[in-house]
């Protein structure tokens, strides 16, 4: 548990942290998952609002940050959500031998982990696409494994069609209340069918709008990390770089564990801004704007995880007084209560002409969050510099070491560790650094942490 909460200056100012009120009035029955939901049942998520300052200067334009911190309970409440999963496997020629052997083992592992409430389909692609096993409940595990063992290497890589067929398998049995997911594994650039980044990512966006999320697994030194990370980012799925074939089963296990502990899905955060307030940015995310509303989709959350959403707001001059600058609404499907929930919270600032009051109340927590957000942008620049060879290996290493110590000092140990791995692979002259770092950038932008 990572509970180092820094008390804001001024002795734990209650106005700096608004505990979101449960908005029971607005919860509506989702699909019945065969569970009796109690009125006011325990919910999976809590939202804290932490502002960069309790005060803002009155009568002049100003800016400040607001951090929305989402936390999910670590407790297991009720059953896990059933999973509707498609494994979409690259069986191009380059996968022959060890890689495909480990993939088969990993698929068999997935079969073992799932149960009869889950739905599984398996699709392979090379030049053509085959549905090895259409979507069905995981009942006869032995038969399923026989199908898996019949996977043979082929020729080229038609990733686009493989992806579409996999998504169609998921949607063919789509039922509300399921976690719909496609695991896409490839070891190379698309070489057949539709190959361009825009079309593939556009297809992923369309599938996302139908409720299907794609997790992108890149294996070996040859795959296109920008494409794979782009797919994950577009749909809110996970991105993994698998450097060695023997790591494939472990990564599948991690992904399955993540799917099995999802407690909040289809999350959308909406900010209803007061009319003199502008949203400058949400770090690492691309909100859509419409009138006084700004909205952003968030990735699914697992049990015992936390997510930071850092917003920068701009205020037009205000007369002194206490104002609501925005109302934040979080809409999501809650696996614990079994319903669609809304958490509403008001974001307040007190506008004062007293400059010293504003200066004395800067909240250091926000500074740290900004540092982490900037670390992500720095990594992006370093990766870009490495790709265009404008940065020498030595300069890149130095840049990365700086970012690594910054992440470590901000408690981002997992990401700091990834940067360390990237530094190692630069020093060994391997190709893995960019493939690792693009995942680090993505996870920093997601703002998600496992406690």
């Amino acid at each position: 548990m990572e509970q180092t909460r820094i008390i804001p200056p001024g002795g734990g100012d209650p106005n700096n942290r608004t505990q979101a009120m449960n908005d029971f009035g607005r919860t509506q029955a989702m699909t019945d998952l065969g569970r009796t939901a109690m009125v006011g049942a325990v919910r999976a998520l809590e939202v804290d609002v932490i502002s960069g300052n309790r005060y803002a200067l009155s009568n002049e334009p100003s800016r400040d940050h607001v951090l929305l911190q989402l936390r999910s309970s670590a407790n297991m409440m009720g059953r896990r959500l059933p999973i509707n999963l498609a494994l979409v496997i690259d069986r191009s020629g380059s996968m022959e031998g060890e890689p495909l052997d480990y993939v088969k083992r990993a698929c068999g592992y997935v079969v073992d982990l799932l149960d009869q409430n889950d739905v599984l389909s398996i699709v392979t692609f090379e030049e053509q696409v085959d549905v090895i096993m259409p979507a069905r409940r995981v009942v006869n595990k032995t038969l399923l494994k026989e199908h898996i063992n019949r996977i043979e290497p082929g020729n080229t890589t038609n990733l686009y069609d493989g992806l579409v067929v996999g998504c169609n398998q998921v949607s063919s049995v789509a039922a509300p209340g399921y976690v719909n997911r496609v695991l896409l594994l490839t070891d190379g650039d698309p070489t057949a069918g539709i190959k361009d980044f825009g079309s593939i990512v556009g297809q992923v966006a369309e599938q996302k709008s139908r409720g299907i999320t794609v997790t992108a697994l890149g294996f070996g030194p040859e795959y296109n990390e920008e494409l794979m990370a782009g797919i994950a980012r577009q749909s809110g799925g996970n991105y993994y770089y698998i450097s060695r074939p023997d790591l494939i089963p472990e990564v599948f296990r991690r992904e399955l564990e993540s799917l099995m502990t999802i407690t909040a899905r289809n999350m959308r955060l909406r900010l209803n801004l007061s009319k003199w307030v502008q949203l400058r940015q949400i770090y690492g995310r691309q909100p859509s704007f419409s009138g006084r509303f700004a909205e952003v989709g968030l990735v699914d959350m697992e049990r015992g995880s936390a997510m930071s959403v850092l917003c920068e707001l701009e205020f037009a001059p205000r007369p002194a007084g206490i104002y609501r600058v925005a109302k934040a609404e979080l809409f999501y499907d809650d696996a614990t209560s079994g319903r669609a929930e809304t958490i509403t919270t008001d974001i307040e600032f007190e506008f004062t002409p007293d400059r010293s009051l504003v200066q004395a109340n800067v909240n250091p927590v926000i500074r740290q969050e900004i540092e982490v957000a900037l670390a992500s942008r720095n990594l992006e620049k370093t990766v870009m510099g490495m790709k265009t060879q404008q940065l020498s290996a030595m300069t890149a290493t130095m840049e990365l070491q700086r970012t690594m110590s910054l992440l470590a000092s901000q408690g981002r140990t997992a990401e700091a560790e990834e940067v360390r791995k990237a530094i190692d692979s630069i020093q060994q002259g391997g190709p893995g650094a960019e493939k690792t770092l693009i995942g680090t950038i993505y996870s920093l932008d997601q703002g998600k942490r496992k406690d």
Partner: protein
Amino acid sequence: MSQMDMTQNLADKTMIAAPIPDADATIIGASVKCPVCGTENSPTEKYCGDCGFLLASTPGEVGEVGEVAPQPKLIASDREHLLKSGENTIGREGTDVLLEDPTVSRRHALLVMEDGKCFIEDLGSTNGTSVNGAQIARGERVEVASGAELKFGSSVLTLDLPEMPAAAEEPAGEAESVEETTDAEPAELTDEIPEVVEQETAPDETVVEEAEAPSPVAQLIGDGVEFAVMPGTSAIGRRGDNDIVISGDPYVSGSHARITAEDGAFTLMDVGSTNGTVLNGTKLEPNQPVTLSAGDEIVFGKTTVKFQVP
């Protein structure tokens, strides 16, 4: 009876007694008036629905009641970016105006706001900057007018420069109340106040060209009404956010017409008002600017004014 119950009852009663609300009518009854912006709110609201003020609290001492002056801004299709005076950097990262568009460079262009004017400069962006369709050269500083279409990479924004809230809008009586509340303010302001107060005796005079505040370039004079026309574009209408507010005439639309004053020339344009704008007896086509000359007679709704240039 708990407080909650009382509020509930109160709300019920109002609902029954109140006639079907007319959007424009002032809501009477158990509403709470926001002390900051004057909006009437239902007693069940915690915050003012218009400005967000916490209704249970008291506004600060220097609470200047009324709307805050509109700020210059860049308007995108889905949002607005506020501009400050002086330099505003425009780009994809860490700039004053943030455009999250991959065709925009990290540091793309610069907008400089000076004396109510706006200048633009390209900072050597990859995909260039254009003003009303014409690409500007790197490093060149170009003046841009309100309403200009600015393109950075493939992001298109419209520049919106509100006129300075004219002194003519606020009668001198307003200035007196400012004087009382700004005891702690710097000398700059207090210096000016006697002058403004003197103006009260001769309201017909145009404000002395003293500070940087632009002075009116023309006037609209009607039966008991008088409006100052400031340089640039002035929005005219019944709503409070116009530069020239004609509040007494229900035949005037919320947003009715526009007068532009540039280099000593004046144009008038109806912006699609319900009852139209008539110039010297001829009804204007909406959104077609026409030239204005001194002595012209203009009718907005049922309000007739004479256009006068000093």
